[in-house]
């Protein structure tokens, strides 16, 4: 249908379009404003007489138009008279699917309800401030909050519009203190860390049979401490998936020789690195750390990827710097060189710090899905198992395809299940979509 400028009211027969709200292809609800018209008398918004999709626009901002002038054409999507617009059918199916996934994923990964005594640990009020807008508080309140180190985003304002006043700040500070005290007084609940554990007691295992005892190396002790710390602090969830890497393996086979000549092993890790960096750019929450002191999440704008390396003495995770700025060849050479030096225990402490995400590829050894421990202070780690040829249904037929087990462990404090599901799904797509031109030297 064609939409024309309706009668504006007494004495007004034309006006200037001050704002045009719609563009081609927009889906409009009935009464959704199409444009805003400024006349001698008033500023008025002109609503859509019907629901539909905009197929043509005849005007632009700044145009002076008269009553009866053609504004837009609408392809009506349904009964314009119907007072109820059903968003489910009006929305494009792609969106529909994603919304569905998200809900499902969110239910899947939702943590079990916290037991009674732990509940007061949360000092956060449920606060919803619109994104991109600072919390509503006067400059003097903001100054006091900054001096006290309180993040106003976490403070609920009691005044109209959610405005935060001194009383709110005081209530929040008191609440924090209560929470801190009850946490200290409470039983060693979950999340208390190593400090709260009872002193370790030695057990004589030789009572039950012969044993041999070996010393824990410094590295073993470091791994032990690090893993316990992560385990205790991070509410970890692991997401599972599989990627069809049949084509990727063919590409690898074809180009491995050329990479080898230039000093790089073209391995699954190389491909995974490339894909992971792209994912981290798309989902910055996975390239982040929690700053608990400041109550903030730090999003890093660099991409230093930890590579889990199996050495004779145990696990070491050196960091490949600026993976986003490296070509496939540079990644292949870089990982190769880093892994070699790591096995020789020649990496410096510096080279093991500053990582933003870790990849643990066990494929070379074997095994399927596993649940890696998040390498804190990072918030996520990718685990790769061994690719196995499996019967897969493709285009209605059962075909042999090489399937790669993929797992993503993440810190649920920062990342939600839905995001992880998206991350993994997109990652699988990337791994399945590598092209000749991505790999060829």
């Amino acid at each position, binding site marked *: 249908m064609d939409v024309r400028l309706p009668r504006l009211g007494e004495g007004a027969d034309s006006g200037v379009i001050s704002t045009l709200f719609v563009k081609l292809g927009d889906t409009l609800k009935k009464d959704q404003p199409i444009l805003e018209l400024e006349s001698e008398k008033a*500023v008025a918004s002109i609503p859509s007489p019907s629901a539909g999709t905009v197929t043509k626009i005849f005007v632009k901002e700044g145009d002076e138009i008269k009553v009866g002038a053609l504004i837009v054409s609408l392809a009506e999507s349904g009964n314009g008279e119907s007072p109820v617009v059903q968003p489910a059918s009006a929305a494009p199916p792609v969106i529909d699917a994603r919304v569905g996934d998200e809900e499902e994923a969110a239910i899947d990964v939702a943590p079990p309800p916290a037991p009674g005594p732990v509940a007061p640990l949360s000092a956060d009020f449920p606060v919803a401030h619109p994104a991109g807008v600072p919390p509503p508080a006067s400059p003097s309140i903001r100054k006091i909050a900054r001096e006290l180190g309180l993040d106003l985003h976490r403070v609920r304002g009691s005044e*109209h519009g*959610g405005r935060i006043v001194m009383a709110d700040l005081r209530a929040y500070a008191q609440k924090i203190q209560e929470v801190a005290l009850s946490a200290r007084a409470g039983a060693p609940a979950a999340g208390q860390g190593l400090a709260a554990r009872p002193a370790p007691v030695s057990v004589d295992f030789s009572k039950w049979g012969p044993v041999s005892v070996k010393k824990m190396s410094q590295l073993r002790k470091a791994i032990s401490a690090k893993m316990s710390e992560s385990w205790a602090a991070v509410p970890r969830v692991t997401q599972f998936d599989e990627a069809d890497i049949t084509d990727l393996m063919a590409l690898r086979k074809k180009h491995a020789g050329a990479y080898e000549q230039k000093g790089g092993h073209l391995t699954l890790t190389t491909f995974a690195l490339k894909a992971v960096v792209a994912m981290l750019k798309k989902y910055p929450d996975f390239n982040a750390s929690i700053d608990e002191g400041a109550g903030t999440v730090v999003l890093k704008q660099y991409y230093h990827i930890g590579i889990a390396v199996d050495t004779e003495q145990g696990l070491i995770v050196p960091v490949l710097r600026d993976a986003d700025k490296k070509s496939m060849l540079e990644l292949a050479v870089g990982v190769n060189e880093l892994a070699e030096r790591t096995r020789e225990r020649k990496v410096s402490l510096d080279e093991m710090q500053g990582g933003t995400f870790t990849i643990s590829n066990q494929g070379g050894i074997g095994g399927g899905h596993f649940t890696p421990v998040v390498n804190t202070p990072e918030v996520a780690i990718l685990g790769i198992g061994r690719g196995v040829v499996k019967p897969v249904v493709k285009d209605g037929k059962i075909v042999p395809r090489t399937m790669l087990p993929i797992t993503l462990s993440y810190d649920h404090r920062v990342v939600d299940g839905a995001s992880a599901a998206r991350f993994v799904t997109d990652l699988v797509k990337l791994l399945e979509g590598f092209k000749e031109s991505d790999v060829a030297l």
Partner: protein
Amino acid sequence: MNSIKTDIVVLGAGPGGYAAAFYAADKGKKVVLVEQEKRLGGVCLNRGCIPSKALLHAAKLITEAEESGFRGIHFPKPRIDLNEMRLWKNSILEKLGGGIADLARRRNVEVLTGRGYFENSTTLRVETEDGQKYVSYDKAIIAVGSKAAMPAAFDLGNPRIMTSTEALEIEEIPKTMLVVGGGYIGMELGTVYATLGSEVVVVEAFDHILAGADLDLARPVARRAEKLFKEIRVSTKVTKMATVGKRIKVNMELNGEKKEEQYDRVLVSVGRLPNCGDLGLENTKVQQDEKGYIKVNDRQQTDDPSICAIGDVAGGVLLAHKATKEGRIAVEVITGELSAFEDIIIPAVVFTDPELAWCGLTEAEARQKGVAVEVVKFPWSASGRALSFDRTDGMTKLIIDPGTERILGVGIVGAGAGELIGEGVVAIEMGATAQDLAESVHPHPTLSETLSECAEAFYGTATHSFSKKKSPAGE
């Protein structure tokens, strides 16, 4: 050797620098203020805000006299004496500059007149009339400002090609004048010259003038300027200038079409550049960004732990009141307070006719950032005060968060908009809602009522305009 020891040295006595120096002195610090010019006040006072406003006031008198015929008041054509006008303008600057010097004296802020140069991170060498002086300090605040940009292609060494600095000296009223750049400086000075009698053409590379302002707010300014100026040409690039006798030949390009014209004078107002040259920054740890601005964090600290930078030279919006705020933050940071330039509203005012002012979130920004907002407008045709002086070409606009009804942005176009926007700043900084604004009684008859009526219009209950009532939430 002439050596002075001080807690804080401030380099540059513009609205950022002197405000910082005075505030530091008020907080009990020993302060040295270094300024290369004899008259304090920086660009703002000497070659910017203040002189341009004086000239715009003169222009307003001429316009109002001209436009008063239909009110039954007839003036003869005014006789303009540029020498007297310049003396009057300069007398204002003298008064202000003298005032600042006096305030410095009373606070025991030592003013050194001369160029400053960093010998290292803690020593500033100052070239004064009485020879070199060395200032050794704990903290320095760099506030050296910016200068009008003159692209090399236009820089012919011809005094008829002016920046704002020369244009403010009004040497003559050229018959024809080209203004390159339709930003606020070009539009303001174009207004002065056009009112004094020049035929002014404004060219702008962008597809509309006054970039940064919402289009609906800029429109009334453009409409009136189109009458005052000979022409406003958007999407136009000036490619070349050359001297032809006493005129300037200008080549430009619009939509692929080439044009060659001659003008008596040209005003180049295409932006400003930081004054970072020859400061000895290389002897400190101060870093600059790719455009030459000094890099600072939100506490105004540079990469050198002894040096802060504020105002134009630190980038961001180049406005005097932003420099002043940054100066105060720098001093608070130096004196150990936890201040930061965070979520601070910096209003913008363009002193064209009508004036244009905004603060907080603009409608365009909200759209760009994807912040859901509701926009309410109140046309000045419904303001009795605007009618009383025949200037209904105005509009007041509120950008409101529909969920909390909080005011996120205010935009005003119309006579005296610059004087009205302060209320918008307070409203946003205080986290006020539309209801707060609507329920605060505004005096009648004033233009400030347009703010409260605009807030009422959000609820569909503005007295002097009629709009459909908001349907209750949840329907």
